[in-house]
């Protein structure tokens, strides 16, 4: 099977009439990588994928696959295979005919096609199910058939458009691992689309986070989570407590933020905000729920926040504590369940602390709305 080839988008713009669906996308995807586009519904993910697979021409910019400019090359001539959001299996063809369709197109004889389909059926653990119709399979099995059908074409790049969104949670988690395994086995480039952040973070080598047609950040999952480059990424990927305010002082990679409601708080300046953030600027500070904990003492400090416990939620490995700070500021804290019985602190006042390294400050900007 062919090794993965790189894909790059160079200054790609895609417009529908006056509407700009994708704005100035610059992406470099290495051969053999698992690359995800992550973003809320309607942000242009499918549009990007369709332009890579050739169903859509960018209004401007270049799409390069394996070093070749794809301009003017139709979807049937590109070394890509697309797995559709709704799978789009052919309902009237048997499973094995579905899988071997790309071989049929190439004029391969029936026996050879059947043989290859059976090999792929073995790979997706559906041995002996080739003579069924797609409608006779379960959701997860259809999913795997769609993957096998795409792989049968021996593409250099596999494009997946939210292929797991229709599955239930258990199956989705199972298919995540399976997809990742398949990707590592065949070694081709996967471009994966999702609006589910944990899906993107668990599977991908790199993630591009999109907002309304614009790519905000491209990084590995951990960087996206720990060092988001915009308030949008910080609030879209994972949960975050946001504190608005102004920069009071800067000292090395730490800044003191005078927040609107919670006093002065100390925070780390991530790499992406270094140099762009000056004293007096509007800023947003982010603290993850799991970075908050109950302070050992109640003294006022620039890493302490006081708040009232509104509610507690037990979630298995964590307790989620919902709090209200000064001025009605809502916050969330996640504590690891230590197994000991906890008495509910509902209604009590707490002092929370955090390690300033785990808080980040960014120039104020748009947040992801839930």
């Amino acid at each position, binding site marked *: 099977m062919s090794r993965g080839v790189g894909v790059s988008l160079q200054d790609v713009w895609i417009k529908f009439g006056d509407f700009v669906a994708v704005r100035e996308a610059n992406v470099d995807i290495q051969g053999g990588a698992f690359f995800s586009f992550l973003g809320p519904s309607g942000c242009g993910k499918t549009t990007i994928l369709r332009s890579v697979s050739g*169903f859509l021409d960018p209004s401007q910019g270049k799409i390069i696959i394996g070093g070749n400019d794809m301009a003017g090359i139709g979807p049937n001539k590109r070394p*890509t*295979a697309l797995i*559709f959001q709704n799978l*789009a299996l*052919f309902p009237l*063809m048997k499973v094995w005919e579905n899988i071997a369709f790309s071989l049929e197109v190439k004029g391969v004889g029936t026996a050879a096609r059947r043989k290859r389909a059976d090999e792929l059926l073995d790979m997706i653990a559906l041995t002996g199910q080739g003579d069924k119709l797609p409608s006779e399979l379960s959701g997860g099995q259809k999913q795997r058939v769609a993957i096998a059908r795409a792989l049968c*074409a021996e593409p250099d790049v596999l494009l997946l458009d939210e292929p797991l969104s229709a599955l239930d949670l258990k199956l989705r988690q199972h298919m995540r691992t399976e997809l990742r395994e398949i990707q590592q086995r065949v070694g081709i480039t996967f471009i994966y689309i999702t609006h589910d952040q944990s899906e993107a973070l668990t599977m991908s080598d790199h993630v591009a986070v999109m907002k309304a047609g614009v790519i905000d950040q491209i990084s590995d999952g951990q960087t996206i989570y720990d060092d988001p480059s915009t308030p949008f990424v910080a609030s879209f990927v994972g949960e975050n407590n946001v504190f608005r305010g102004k920069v009071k002082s800067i000292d090395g990679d730490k800044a003191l933020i005078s927040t609107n409601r919670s006093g002065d708080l100390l925070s780390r300046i991530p790499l992406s905000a270094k140099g762009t953030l000056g004293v007096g600027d509007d800023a947003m500070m982010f603290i993850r729920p799991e970075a908050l904990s109950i302070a050992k003492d109640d003294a006022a400090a620039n890493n302490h926040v006081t708040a009232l416990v509104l509610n507690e939620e037990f979630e298995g490995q964590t307790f989620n504590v919902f709090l209200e700070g000064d001025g009605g500021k809502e916050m969330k804290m996640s504590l690891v369940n230590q197994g000991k019985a906890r008495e509910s602190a509902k209604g009590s006042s707490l002092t929370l602390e955090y390690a300033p390294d785990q808080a980040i400050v960014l120039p104020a900007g748009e947040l992801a709305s839930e």
Partner: protein
Amino acid sequence: MNISAAFKRFFNRNGLGLGSFLLIAVGFWLIVLIILPQLSMLDFSFRHHLPPPEMGGPKDTYTLEHYKYLALGAQGADQSYNVVDLGVFVRTLVAAFFVTIFDLLLCYPLAYYLGQASGSGYTRILVLFLIIPYWVNEILRAFAFRIIFGDSGVINELLLAMGLVDNPVDFIRDNVALYSGLGYAYILLMIFPMYNVIESLDRNQIEAARDMGAPWWRIHWRIVIPYAKPGISSGCTMVFMLSAGALAAPQILGGPSSLWFTQIIYQWFNQGGNWPRGAAYAIVLLSVCILIVLSAMRLFKVRMGDIGK
């Protein structure tokens, strides 16, 4: 499930009022308007052609005489078969077959375009343009065709003006006018069943096939046509049945030398006043048409239930 339980469920689902209305309306339609008239036709076809006073008399017995006549002709004729009527019969069926094929070839791309390629308000306007001509009644449309295809009609004028022909082409004698008229008359019946099915085909399937390298013809052959088969067979069945049974178009547009089988039936009923013979001819036409449609369905593996789609 036994019948009384089925009735109970039917009434529970639809309520007593609506349930009885449905039952009575469908029953009336089926029994009074379809089955009874056809049965009386069938009965007629097996009776002698008698003057009214002798009806119900001793001479009024069942006979195969009219079916024999269609097959063998008048007793003592030169030929051993009824060459004229059988010839017309076969020619009618063959012509209806070609009208069907012609309509299919013409309408499939249209239905595909309407159902898949566009999908905006633009489609609705196109459909409207297709429907509006059918507000004009059939006879008027047929005569309009006669005028267009006539010796001094638009088409001949055009051909003459462009110097493509020296003398007007006799479209009527060559049956061009008839076939065009018939084809045109049933276009909608071909388009709509296909359009309905094709419209429900998931676009992604077509794109998936294209993504896997399939050229357009294979996409149609492997994806669209199999999917549209119920619509195609339903359209073909209607067009074939109706062209084989058409009367107005052949009367008005047919050439002098070519008779349509329905015209012979009409003559027996009307000019000949021989209702039993007309009935026998009509029954033969109907049965053979049904037989052809059923064998075609069998050949293309279409199930009866699919036709209703």
